[in-house]
């Protein structure tokens, strides 16, 4: 290929990306969401630099349930640990679990949804039955079923991919329960994409079903997957929080949900320790809200027709 080709290609792609970013960032929600997200991602990336190593009951520095002060900006918990320290370390756990679970759910959901929609007939029927099964499956029940299995297989003290077993369970459970939503969205989009003439053209060109799915359908699903992926992250953060709050988290790798659970058990609400409950609570709300804002802005950017609706 000649030089002109490469120049052209680069220019076209750059222009497309620029247009997209221009529209996307035109939404106030997208700006706010991105700002919050960057803040939390930076926090989660370097907790040790920002607040020092994770405090435990042994190296705790403060009084018990002390209100916010110059020394402890967000107060302390019932054993004297700095709440800011816990929340910053919790950000890393919560965000990692949510993002990894989202990756699982997007990969599984896209594969299942695209296969069902593309092949139709009995493949569709059975895959969608499976999807519906996982769609209505309560994550808490699934967690209760899986936890003993994972503990049995992996052993209690071991780590899997850097996660302690209970966090690994949470990761798997969120992945398993949220892919069904993605699969439904992807399937319905695939149903309309496979009727498009360019798929017929690919078939006349002798392309295999696999190649048609990967080269023709998948690229056209990206907008849907991206917009819904952001919503799946928001959901994953909530589910992670609630599972941990119900006691399925790991006290040695505390997420925001675990902190809420500890606070609740320490009687933070009745003791008036609003900072202990409030700090992780506000974090959960802010982060999931930012993902929802980003998801909606992505959806609006990719779907120009929806913008007309006030």
């Amino acid at each position, binding site marked *: *290929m*000649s030089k*002109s*080709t*490469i120049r*052209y*290609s680069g220019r*076209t792609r750059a222009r497309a990306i620029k247009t997209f970013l221009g529209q996307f960032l035109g939404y106030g929600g997208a700006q706010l969401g991105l700002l919050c997200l960057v803040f939390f991602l930076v926090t989660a990336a370097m907790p040790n630099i920002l607040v020092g190593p994770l405090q435990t009951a042994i190296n705790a520095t403060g009084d018990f349930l002390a209100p916010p002060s110059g020394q402890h900006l967000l107060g302390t918990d019932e054993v004297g640990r700095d709440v800011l320290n816990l929340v910053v370390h919790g950000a890393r756990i919560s965000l990692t679990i949510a993002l990894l679970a989202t990756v699982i759910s997007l990969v599984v959901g896209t594969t299942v949804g695209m296969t069902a929609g593309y092949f139709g007939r009995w493949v569709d029927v059975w895959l969608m039955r499976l999807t519906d099964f996982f769609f209505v499956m309560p994550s808490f029940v699934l967690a209760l079923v899986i936890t003993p299995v994972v503990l049995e297989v992996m052993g209690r003290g071991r780590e899997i991919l850097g996660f302690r077993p209970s966090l690994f369970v949470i990761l798997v459970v969120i992945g398993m329960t949220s892919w069904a939503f993605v699969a439904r969205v992807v399937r319905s989009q695939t149903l309309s994409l496979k009727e*498009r*003439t*360019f798929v*017929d*053209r*690919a*078939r*006349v*060109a*002798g*392309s*295999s*079903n696999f*190649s048609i799915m990967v*080269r*023709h359908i998948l*690229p*056209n699903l990206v907008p849907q997957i991206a917009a819904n992926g952001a919503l799946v992250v928001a959901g994953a953060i909530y589910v992670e929080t609630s599972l941990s709050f119900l006691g399925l988290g790991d006290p040695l790798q505390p997420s925001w949900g675990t902190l809420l659970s500890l606070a609740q058990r320490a009687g933070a609400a009745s003791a008036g320790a609003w900072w202990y409950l409030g700090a992780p609570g506000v974090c959960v709300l802010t982060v999931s809200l930012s993902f929802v804002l980003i998801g909606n802005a992505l959806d609006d950017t990719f779907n120009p027709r929806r913008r007309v609706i006030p």
Partner: protein
Amino acid sequence: MLDAADILRLESLQVHFPIQGGLFDRVLGRPAGAVRAVDRIDLNVGRGEIVALVGESGSGKTTVGRLITKLAQPTGGKLLFEGRDMTFVQDLSALRPYRHRVQMIFQDAYQALNPRHTVFDIVAEPLRSLRLVDNRTQLTDRVSEALASAGLNPPDDFFSRFPHELSGGQRQRVVIAGALAVKPELIVADEPVSMLDVSIRAQILQVLVDLRDKHNVALLFITHDLPLAWLIADRIAVLYLGKLVEIGSADEITFNPRHPYTVALRNATPQIGANAGRAELPALQGEVPSAARVPNGCRFHPRCPLAFDRCRQEEPPPIEVGPQHMSACWLAK
């Protein structure tokens, strides 16, 4: 009609799409019926021949094209390519040699191009999928060659463009280039110029005629436009409600039509209708009936000004009315 040189032969080929009946029909066991989109068609295309398939909207032209290109499965009859039975071949490995030799040009070029692929990838796709090239240099050469034959010059200027960066005529040329790239022996062209400006039509038609003249490619040219069919084709086949009602040489069909439907079609086009005995028949009346409810007897009888009793009961068979000229009408004899 059966010529050893035929590249493609359809023998009573038919496709009936089942109609999904309502709940009531299913409970009562009532048959829901079928859309008889293509009903027992006999047609042959010779090597390097241009055959036009003419008919109104909904007559089943596209469906015939999709049957030939194996995008739809027939429910009966035979599809023979160079004498080999391809009717029910579905397996990709068995189909690839066929795809190498039979290509399609689509009506709506914008829909036929994946908006996320570059022109190069679009034209290269059949060459890659059918494994017709060994290396990148060969691929680039074949893509350039195809783009140039389709009239996109200089080819490299188009390699990395996306469909939305092209004009309508250029898009149709890209679709044509994709079909040419594999050097097929038969191309099904489904209304290739109907979406284009008049000024561009002639150029695109020239590309197609050149293909036949230079490379002896056979063409099934689908159109609803009788004068256009006459202009480009050697023979014309007229389709009405999924049935071929008249076949003959382009001149015969245009200037000596023997089926009342063809006569009506011709009268509806002022260019040729004017000087060819317009008073013979009144213009066509009424709508084309739905292919889900094909009339009994001759399917044209509800609209035919010459219909008589027999037409309502018995379906007329194809009748020879001249050399290589067939008409399915009781009055044809």
